[in-house]
């Protein structure tokens, strides 16, 4: 077929030469290089010039880029890997938290040579793996920038660094030059056998010397009462778990009284409610100012502090079947009721009192004797050795000091210049001593007065032991090389007494001999605990525990003989005592701060107080009734209550006791006796003790309330008649929770919190189930709720599905979980100003709700963290998918994807998401941006030293991103990996074996939190849910978030019924 030729140009048609040439060259235009007419890049005149241009530019650019200063953080790998350190794998060392006589056996988690977290030691039969907030926070003190780093000589500004050798030399010389004047070793309670040995050696070397024990908050009354009635100046063991009826008269045994971790463990054993056998212990609490323990009580009665004696005396007569008199009507009712229950449960009843009055404690002993508590709930065969100080001894010492009768004073643990009621006397006394040496690891109030400061190690750097209970020992071993030029104070004592050995050797020798051989010693050290019967050779958990528990839990005999001689006199002395003042002042310890031990710890300062939810300050607790007359605030009027709640500045009041006064803001706390006010001690510390003790304005945090105490004969009295006046100004208080009722004018929010009484539960066990069924009725009822509550398809959730169950009946609200979470998840400290702006970062918080009358309400604590909803409202609103759902049911955050719209936080009905409002952690890429709202305490936490506490497994979040509880995802991964390596399914609590525990669960002294794989039918969390199905609920379940955290309703053993909504 002939084809037409199509042509495009005349050139093509004619096939001219020019066209042929043009067609040959596909790229007709030359490349635009210089001298292109010569043809091609390589033939240009100046390719060299171009080349140099490019070279020059790129070199300059690279040099410029490389010379920009980028901070280099050195990470040096081991040249030779130590045998026992695997990077990324933590080691755990058993050791012991010891602080002013408090003892808790713990494990220190050590990563790459740094202790970063404290866990409870499960092998301890006393604490059974429980911890407290203060124990959890103690690891931070190791890295505190305000620790003393070397010995000093000189007072105040004259203090100069000296070497240990120089200190030894000149102190030895000064001791020698005393010329027989007595040396006094002043300490807080010491229950370490080897330390007491060292002290005795020292005293032997310097005849006439003595050891004075001083406790800031002493138990003098109890010790002396026990001496009077049982002939022993000691405190017996208590067994709250054996008590069906507990009556506490002002003893905050879950918070601050003697051994709260131990008592919490015991207490909650009686508070576990089983569906089959719904029985609970019954807890009556008589108190003056709302406390943690009082908040947990079934029945709480309020009285004036001066009435304590009358209350105890009345209870005594009621227990003996006599008429009750001399107390208010409300208290009378309580006493009658309590006495009835106590008598009905003889042998399973316990009365404790927090009073420091000898007479009161004598009567309490008499009551317990009448209730046959000995051998059942009180055990004299093993005494508690936490507090041994007698205030009178110290008062005598102060007199001696001022009289110039003391040659030298060695101070360890005690800080009387701060905590003695007459601190001026202490100061003048110390100035009269020839030689004053402090072993304090901080420049505290007393250390500032001492010529020499030879700082002690932190307990994580120390060897040591403790005997918290007679016959039970807990060991301390170093977990890190000493960070600074410090020395264990026992070493100093030994050195100055001329001993040949150092403390660690003496310690080892002592225990090897006592435990019978090196093997036992090593096992004991590994276990961290031992009993008087020695140690079991095998460190297997169950064995040791069973053995030790058997050893400890069965009290042997009734103990000492009771001498009732002084009781009648005590009753007449105590019963008649009544204050005359209109308002009485009570001084109490806070759970976190104690007598000031926690004041320098940012984590503890920022932990909301369980009762008041306040951080970073002390304040005057006033009752709602007093607020009405004194502050003109009536919480019953919604407008006034709102105004009080929404504004952080609170009115300042001036409180005067015995002519000494403090001016503090007033917080209204329901559950406080109408005319009683409370002030926490432990605040107003010297600025030198730590950044956390100083406000951003440069003032001290809070006010010291110790001067308001007084010495009453042999014991310091923590209450007195006061004079309270409004001072005019206001002062902001950083509260983490402003509203405390789940009742609103539009109805009670029973979907948020469910509680009922034991009687209600017994009568109608499925009341809560019914309530839930009713709430869910519009969405298909409980059964079909998951499916019918949504228009989306419902998916299977195979494999691991994480879930948590929290028993509100066990949770006492102590806050250990809050600090444990801080440590585990690198939660930043934000400081007071930021907390008051509601910028706190805690991933777990404990919500506190009141119910009932405003004057004496019931209190419920509800731990609240990310609920890991399976239908999470936060997830679908994030524009960038930064928060999403894992196949294991975790609601997870991708921090580096987050752009910080805060939409997820808005849409979170639980308000558990936390936003990094400023560069709290110094992790931001912006330099110099830590100004404005970043407080001094936050900056201190960013110090290289403080950063050593950071958990390397958890990202440090930068500014502008959202964060929240991750269910400790790093632990989950570790646990899964461990199970995988061992080729077995993950264990979540079956037969008590755990691959994974979240930090809050592990820290909880009340075992309130259970966590695990809910797809594993044998998991503890599944059992927890199914066995308590009648009490199970999820918070605001009806909005179909399908949370993976469930709660068990609070059941109170209370006569008065809790109103429920039908």
């Amino acid at each position, binding site marked *: 077929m002939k084809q037409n030729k199509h042509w495009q140009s005349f050139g093509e048609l004619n096939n001219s030469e020019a066209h042929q040439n043009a067609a040959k060259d596909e790229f007709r235009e030359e490349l635009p290089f210089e001298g292109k007419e010569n043809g091609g890049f390589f033939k240009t005149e100046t390719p060299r010039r171009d080349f140099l241009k490019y070279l020059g530019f790129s070199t300059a650019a690279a040099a410029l880029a490389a010379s920009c200063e980028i901070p280099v953080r050195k990470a040096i790998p081991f040249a030779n890997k130590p045998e026992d350190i695997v990077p990324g794998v933590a080691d755990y060392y058993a050791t012991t938290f010891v602080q002013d006589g408090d003892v808790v056996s713990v494990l220190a988690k050590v990563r790459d040579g740094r202790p970063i977290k404290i866990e409870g030691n499960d092998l301890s039969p006393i604490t059974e793996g429980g911890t407290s907030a203060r124990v959890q926070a103690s690891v931070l003190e190791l890295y505190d920038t305000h620790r003393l780093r070397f010995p000093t000589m000189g007072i105040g500004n004259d203090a100069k660094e000296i070497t240990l050798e120089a200190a030894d030399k000149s102190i030895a010389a000064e001791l020698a030059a005393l010329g027989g004047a007595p040396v006094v070793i002043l300490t807080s309670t010491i229950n370490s056998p080897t330390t007491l040995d060292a002290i005795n050696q020292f005293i032997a070397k310097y005849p006439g010397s003595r050891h004075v024990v001083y406790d800031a908050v002493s138990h003098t009354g109890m010790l002396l009462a026990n001496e009077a009635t049982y002939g022993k100046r000691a405190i017996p063991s208590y067994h709250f778990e054996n008590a069906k009826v507990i009556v506490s008269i002002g003893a905050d045994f879950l918070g601050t009284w003697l051994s709260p971790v131990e008592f919490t463990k015991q207490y909650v054993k009686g508070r576990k409610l089983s569906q089959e056998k719904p029985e609970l212990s019954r807890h009556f609490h008589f108190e003056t100012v709302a406390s943690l323990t009082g908040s947990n009580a079934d029945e709480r009665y309020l009285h004036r502090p001066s009435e304590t004696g009358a209350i105890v005396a009345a209870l005594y007569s009621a227990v003996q079947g006599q008429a009750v008199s001399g107390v208010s009507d409300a208290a009378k009712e309580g006493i009658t009721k309590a006495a009835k229950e106590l008598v009905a449960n003889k042998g399973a009843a316990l009365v404790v009192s927090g009073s420091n009055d000898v007479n009161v404690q004598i009567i309490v002993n008499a009551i317990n004797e009448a209730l046959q508590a000995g051998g059942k709930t009180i055990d004299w065969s093993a005494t508690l050795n936490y507090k041994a100080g007698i205030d009178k001894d110290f008062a005598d010492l102060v007199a001696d000091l001022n009289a110039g009768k003391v040659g030298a004073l060695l101070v360890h643990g005690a800080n009387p210049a701060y905590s003695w009621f007459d601190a001026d006397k202490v100061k003048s006394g110390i100035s009269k001593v020839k030689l004053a040496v402090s072993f304090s690891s901080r420049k505290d109030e007393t250390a500032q007065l001492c010529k020499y400061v030879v700082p002690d190690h932190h307990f994580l750097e120390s060897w040591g032991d403790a005997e918290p209970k007679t016959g039970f020992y807990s060991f301390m071993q170093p977990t890190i090389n000493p960070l600074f030029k410090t020395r264990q104070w026992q070493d100093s004592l030994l050195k100055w007494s001329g001993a040949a050995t150092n403390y660690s050797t003496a310690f080892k020798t002592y225990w090897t001999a006592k435990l019978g051989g090196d093997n036992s010693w090593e096992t004991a050290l590994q276990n961290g605990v031992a009993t008087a019967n020695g140690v079991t050779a095998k460190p297997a958990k169950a064995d040791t525990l069973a053995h030790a528990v058997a050893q400890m839990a069965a009290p042997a005999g009734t103990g000492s003989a009771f001498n009732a001689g002084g009781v009648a006199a005590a009753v007449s002395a105590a019963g008649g005592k009544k204050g005359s003042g209109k308002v009485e002042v009570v001084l109490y310890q806070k759970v976190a701060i104690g007598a000031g031990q926690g004041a320098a710890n940012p984590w503890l300062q920022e932990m909301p107080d369980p009762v008041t939810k306040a951080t970073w300050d002390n304040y005057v607790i006033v009752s709602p009734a007093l607020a009405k007359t004194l502050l003109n605030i009536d919480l019953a009027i*919604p*407008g006034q209550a*709102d105004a009080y*709640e*929404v*504004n952080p500045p609170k009115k300042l009041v001036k409180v005067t006791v015995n002519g000494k006064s403090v001016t503090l803001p007033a917080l209204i706390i329901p559950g406080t006796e109408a005319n009683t006010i409370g002030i926490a001690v432990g605040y107003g510390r010297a600025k030198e003790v730590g950044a956390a003790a100083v406000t951003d304005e440069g003032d001290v945090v809070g006010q010291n309330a110790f001067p308001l105490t007084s010495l009453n004969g042999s014991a310091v009295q923590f209450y007195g008649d006061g004079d309270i006046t409004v001072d005019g100004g206001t002062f902001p208080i950083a*509260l983490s*929770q*402003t*509203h*405390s009722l789940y009742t*609103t*004018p*539009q*109805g*009670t*929010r029973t979907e*948020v919190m469910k509680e009922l009484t034991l009687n209600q539960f017994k009568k109608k066990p499925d009341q809560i189930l019914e309530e839930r069924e009713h709430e869910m009725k519009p969405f298909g009822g409980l059964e079909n709720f998951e499916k019918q509550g949504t228009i989306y398809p419902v998916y299977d959730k195979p494999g691991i599905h994480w879930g948590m169950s929290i028993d509100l009946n066990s949770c006492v609200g102590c806050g250990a979980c809050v600090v444990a979470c801080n440590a585990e998840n690198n939660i930043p400290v934000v400081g007071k100003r*930021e907390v008051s*702006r*509601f*910028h*706190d970062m805690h991933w777990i918080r404990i*919500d*506190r*709700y009141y119910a009932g009358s405003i004057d004496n309400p019931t209190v419920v604590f509800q731990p*609240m963290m990310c609920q890991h909803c399976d239908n999470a*409202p936060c997830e*679908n*609103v994030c*524009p*960038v998918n930064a928060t999403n759902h894992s196949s294991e049911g975790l609601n997870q955050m991708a921090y580096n*994807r*987050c*752009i*910080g*719209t*805060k*939409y997820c*936080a*808005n*849409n979170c*009905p*639980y*308000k558990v998401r936390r*936003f*990094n*409002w*400023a*560069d709290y952690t110094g992790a931001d890429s912006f330099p110099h*941006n830590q*100004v*404005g*709202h970043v407080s001094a305490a936050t900056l201190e936490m960013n110090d290289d030293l403080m950063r050593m506490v950071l958990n390397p497994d958890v990202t440090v979040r930068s*500014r*502008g*991103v*959202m964060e929240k509880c991750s269910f400790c995802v790093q632990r989950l991964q570790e646990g899964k990996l461990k199970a995988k390596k061992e080729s077995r399914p993950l264990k979540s609590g079956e037969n008590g074996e755990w691959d994974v525990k979240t930090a809050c669960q592990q820290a909880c002294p009340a075992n309130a939190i259970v966590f695990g794989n809910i797809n594993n039918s044998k998991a503890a969390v599944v059992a927890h849910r199914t066995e308590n199905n009648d009490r199970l609920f999820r918070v*605001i379940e009806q*909005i179909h978030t399908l949370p993976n955290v469930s709660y068990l309703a609070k059941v109170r053993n209370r006569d008065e019924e809790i109103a429920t909504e039908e």
Partner: protein
Amino acid sequence: MVLNQVTMHLKYESQLREPLVAGVKDYHQVTEDIVRPIEAKPSKLWYIGFFISVACLLFGVYSVYREVTYGIGQWNLNRTIGWGWDITNFVWWVGIGHAGTLISAILLLFRQGWRTGVNRAAEAMTIFAVMCAGQFPIFHMGRVWMAMFVFPYPNTRGPVWPNFNSPLMWDVFAISTYFTVSLLFWYSGLIPDFATVRDRAKTKLRKKLYGIASFGWVGSTKHWQRHEALSLVLAGLATPLVLSVHTIVSMDFATSVIPGWHTTIFPPYFVAGAIFSGFAMTQTLLLVIRKVFGLQDYITMGHIEAMNKVIVLTGSIVGCAYLTELFMGWYSQNKYEGYTFWYSRANLFSPYGWSYWGMMACNVLSPQIFWFRKLRRNIYITFFMSVIVNIGMWFERFVIIVTSLYRDYLPSSWSPYYHPSIWEIGFYVGTFGLFFTCFFLFSKYFPTIAIAEIKYILKVTGENYKEKVGELEMENPDEFAHEYAH
């Protein structure tokens, strides 16, 4: 052509319908009137206003600098109130940005001739308001430098896409689309007018700049034909956007679970509110422009009255919505919603009760005065009311956002009182600065009234007819016919 003030009316001329342009104008006069401000030197007042605006803008820039450098903590938002002034102002500005497109698009489609007097300024206001609005969602991000994550761009991270379920994501699309279409619409209308300015320009620079801006417009029939077609197409596109943008903004709240946000009534109620506030803002600005540039003949009392009618209509719709919400708060028997609506809002003595009743007073009660013609046609009252309405609409957004958030489900997380920090206020002031800076520049360099469009509705021929033939017509028609026949 100099016109005598003809007050007589023709026999068949409507006595009821006011003329859309007052006075007797011819085409040239219109051009003169409107272009005068562009060609004259700006007044002292203009300079003062402009520099105040720039000062506000600079303060805003510094406020934003603080926030970006030191974090959102510079603002007083907190863990319970995650959005405060930022999103309040965002929604407020977006709402204001509604009138312009409504006037230009919907009224164009409905052939409402009166729109031509006001559409240019209203559209400019829309553009600037949306620009201001856009600042807030951008700078309310904690990590604004990662803002591009909201765009679905191809990436090497997996790839990771934005979350198409998120209403914030929808906002990104809705607002950027709205802004683009509004801008195009506005600009396409400006082209013939720029050409007019260009043709009259006396300096080379002016000629060049306006020449570029007018894209070589010569006013040929073809150009006009295309221009008309484009206007209709853009109007068609913009019409659903007027409804969709605020609908989607309302979904930021309506799709959430928070009591007070989780409400199906939001989309229509937000759109009505947006038009309400948009018209009020248009009133505020036009009354000023009208006065300052002497444009009373083009922006007549008729315009003002028409817009006041829209205000009273939309204000009443919004009022109905408020009452419906309250009713539902009670009728649903949902204690969480009940608390939000009846305690946090309707209760004057609750912490934010003032904002709710401020909103009610400004948005629902006060516009009702516009049922009276006399008040509708009073310039001072109109101006005052236009400001009041915008204050009220700001309250509305504040009420919705803050009173819902600050006390939601768990009483434990109820927030302390939220006051804006100086930098939050500064940011808001800064957007005013931005808005008015743009508006001052616009009024100086752009024709503030659509010259070409206003000529459509000018009854020049009618007026000429009146002048020339009117007298004849006044005579006896028979005579007229007779004369004409000759």
